[in-house]
C-alpha cells in the first residue's frame, strides 16, 4: 500500500482539480494555464524521446503537433458536427463524450505517419543534418496548412468548439482538463513502459553506441524510425488537445517558436528524464505565463526610475528575449538541466518506497 502513496496522491490531486474546476472554484485563466501545462508536458515528453533518449536533434517538433491539431480538429468536425465542409455529422452529437478518443487516436496516427515520412529520408543522415531536415519539415507542414483555403489557411480553422459544447451538453464537466490529464497519464505510461522494456532500450543503445547496437542485433534504422514515430504521434496528441482547448487552430501557433519552447523544456528538465521534463514543463509554462505580469511591472518600474525613455514601452515581445536568454544561461551554467538523465527517484532514492511506476 505504501508503495502506491504517490500514485494515489497524484490521482487525488487530479480529481480535486477536476472537482474544483467543475464547481467553478477555479478562475478561467487558472484553468487555462493548468490545461496548457498538461499540453506542454505531453509535447515536451514526446520531444524528449528523440532529443533525450535517442540523442538525435529534432528542431521542428511543433510541425507534428500541427499535424495532430489539424487532423484532430477536422476529425472532430467531421464526426460530431454538421458543417459545410463535411456535410452532416457521422455520429449524433451526444456521442461526443464517448467517441472523442477516436479523434485523439486519429490525430496521433496521422502525426505518427507524418513522422514516418520525415524519418524515412532523414535517418540516412545524422546530427546537424537531421536538425536541418526537421526544421524544413516544420516549415513545410505550416506552409501546407497556410495554403489550403478550405480549412481557413492563415486565418486558422475553428469548429471543433461544437464538440466541446456537445460534451458539455451531455454532462457539464471541465472536459478539456480531463482529456488533457488522461493524455499526460497515457504519455508518461507509454514512454515509461517503452523505455524500461528491452525493446525500447534499443533506443538508448543507439544513442550511446550505434555501432555496438547494430553489431549486437539491434536493427538501428528501424528502432530510430519507431522512436521518431512514437514521438511525433505523442506530439500530435498534444496538438489535438491544444486545438480543442484553444477552440481554434492557427498555423502560426506551431511555428519554430513553439519548437524552441519544446527544446527549452527538454533541456531545462534534463535529457532522457521523464520526471525532469515534467518539472521543466510546469516551471516553463508558469514562467512564460508570469512574464505577462512581470513585463508590465518591469516596464512601470523602469519608467518610474527613469531608466527607459518615456516614448518606449516594454511589451510582450520581450518574452522572446527572456526565454532564449534562459536557454543560454542554462547551457552555460547547468547544461544537464534539472536532473541530467536521471529520474527523481534516482536523486532521492527514498521516493522509491512511495511510488510504483510500471
Amino acid at each position, binding site marked *: 500500500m505504501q508503495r502506491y502513496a504517490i500514485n494515489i496522491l497524484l490521482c487525488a490531486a487530479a480529481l480535486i482539480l477536476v472537482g474544483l474546476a467543475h464547481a467553478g472554484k477555479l478562475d478561467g485563466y487558472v484553468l487555462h494555464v493548468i490545461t496548457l501545462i498538461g499540453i506542454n508536458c505531453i509535447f515536451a515528453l514526446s520531444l524528449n524521446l528523440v532529443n533525450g533518449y535517442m540523442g538525435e536533434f529534432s528542431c521542428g517538433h511543433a510541425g507534428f503537433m500541427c499535424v495532430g491539431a489539424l487532423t484532430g480538429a477536422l476529425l472532430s468536425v467531421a464526426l460530431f458536427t454538421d458543417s459545410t465542409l463535411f456535410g452532416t455529422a457521422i455520429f449524433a452529437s451526444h456521442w461526443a463524450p464517448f467517441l472523442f478518443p477516436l479523434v485523439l487516436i486519429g490525430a496521433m496516427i496521422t502525426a505518427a505517419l507524418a513522422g514516418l515520412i520525415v524519418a524515412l529520408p532523414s535517418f540516412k543522415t545524422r546530427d546537424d543534418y537531421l536538425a536541418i531536415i526537421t526544421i524544413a519539415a516544420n516549415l513545410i507542414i505550416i506552409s501546407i496548412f497556410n495554403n489550403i483555403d478550405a480549412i481557413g489557411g492563415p486565418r486558422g480553422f475553428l469548429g471543433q468548439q461544437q464538440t466541446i459544447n456537445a460534451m458539455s451538453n451531455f454532462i457539464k464537466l471541465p472536459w478539456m482538463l480531463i482529456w488533457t490529464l488522461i493524455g499526460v497519464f497515457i504519455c508518461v505510461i507509454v514512454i515509461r513502459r517503452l523505455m524500461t522494456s528491452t525493446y525500447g532500450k534499443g533506443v538508448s543503445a543507439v544513442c*550511446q553506441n550505434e555501432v555496438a547496437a547494430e553489431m549486437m542485433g*539491434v536493427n538501428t534504422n528501424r528502432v530510430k524510425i519507431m522512436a521518431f514515430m512514437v514521438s511525433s504521434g505523442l506530439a500530435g496528441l498534444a496538438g489535438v488537445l491544444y486545438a480543442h482547448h484553444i477552440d481554434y487552430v492557427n498555423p502560426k501557433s506551431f511555428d519554430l517558436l513553439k519548437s524552441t519552447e519544446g527544446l527549452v523544456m527538454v533541456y531545462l528538465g534534463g535529457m532522457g528524464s521523464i520526471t525532469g521534463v515534467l518539472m521543466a514543463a510546469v516551471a516553463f509554462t508558469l514562467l512564460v505565463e508570469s512574464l505577462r505580469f512581470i513585463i508590465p511591472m518591469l516596464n512601470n518600474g523602469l519608467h518610474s526610475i527613469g531608466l527607459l525613455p518615456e516614448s518606449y514601452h516594454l511589451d510582450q515581445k520581450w518574452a522572446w528575449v527572456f526565454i532564449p536568454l534562459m536557454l543560454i544561461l542554462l547551457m552555460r551554467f547547468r547544461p544537464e538541466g534539472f536532473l541530467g538523465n536521471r529520474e527523481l527517484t534516482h536523486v532521492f532514492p527514498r521516493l522509491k518506497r512511495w511510488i510504483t511506476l510500471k
Partner: protein
Amino acid sequence: MPLLKISGLTQRFGGIQALSDFSFQLEEHEIVGLIGPNGAGKTTVFNIVSGFYKPTEGKVVFNGRRINGLKPHQITALGMARTFQNIRLWNNMTVLDNMRLARYAWLGYSFWSAIFRTQRYRRAEKNIENQAREALEMMELTDYAEELPKNLPYGLQRRVELARALASKPRLLLLDEPAAGLNSSDADDLIHFIRWIHDEFKLSIWMIEHQMKVVMSLCQHLTVIDFGCTIASGTPEEIRNNPDVIKAYLGDDTL
C-alpha cells in the same frame, strides 16, 4: 562444410586497396588467428565479415549462406558475434542491461506488447533476464550487474564486452585484439578464459591479436596479411619460421 568461407574478397576505399583477393576458410570448433602489422587490413576483414562494409568484390559464406550484403544485425541473428578493438559498451546502461540487449535479435514480442505489458511480453522479458544473468554468472560478473560499465576497470570492461558477445549465443565469435591493453598476467588469464569459452560453448573463434604469446598458444591456424595481401598461412610453428612473415614484421633491411 566449413562454417565460414571467404573467397576473393577485395575492398577498395577510393584509390586505396585495403584488401586484395583475400580467401579464407574456418571449420566448426576451430580457433584461428589473423595477424599482420598495423594497417595491414585485419580489421577491414572483420568489418566486412560482420557486415559493416560492403566488399568491392568477393563472397562471404557463413553456415552455408551468403552474408555479404546483409546488415550487421541480420548477421548477428545468424549466429555471429564480435568484440571491438576499442571497447564499445553502452556506458550509461547497467552491465545487466548490456547483456539483455544482446538478446535483441530474439526478442519475441512487438512494440504493442511492450506498451500493453501482455503475457507474451512478460514471459519474453523473464526469459531475457534469465539469459542475461546466466551470461554474467558464467563470466563471473554477477557482482557488477547493477554497475555502469564506465565505472569499471579496463580489464573488467573487456570481460563485460566478451560476456555480451557470448550472451548472443554465437556459433562464431570474432575477437578484435582481445588482449589489447592487458599486461602479461592478465593476458595469461585471457588465454585460459578463451580456451574455456571455446570448450564450454563449442564455438569457433577467429581472432586478431598482436600479442604473440596469446596467438601462438591458442590458435590452431594462422593467416598473415600485409598491405591487404595474404602473405602466409599455416600452423603457428610454420608461421614463426616463415621468412616472408619475419620480413613483413621487421622490415627488409634487418635481415
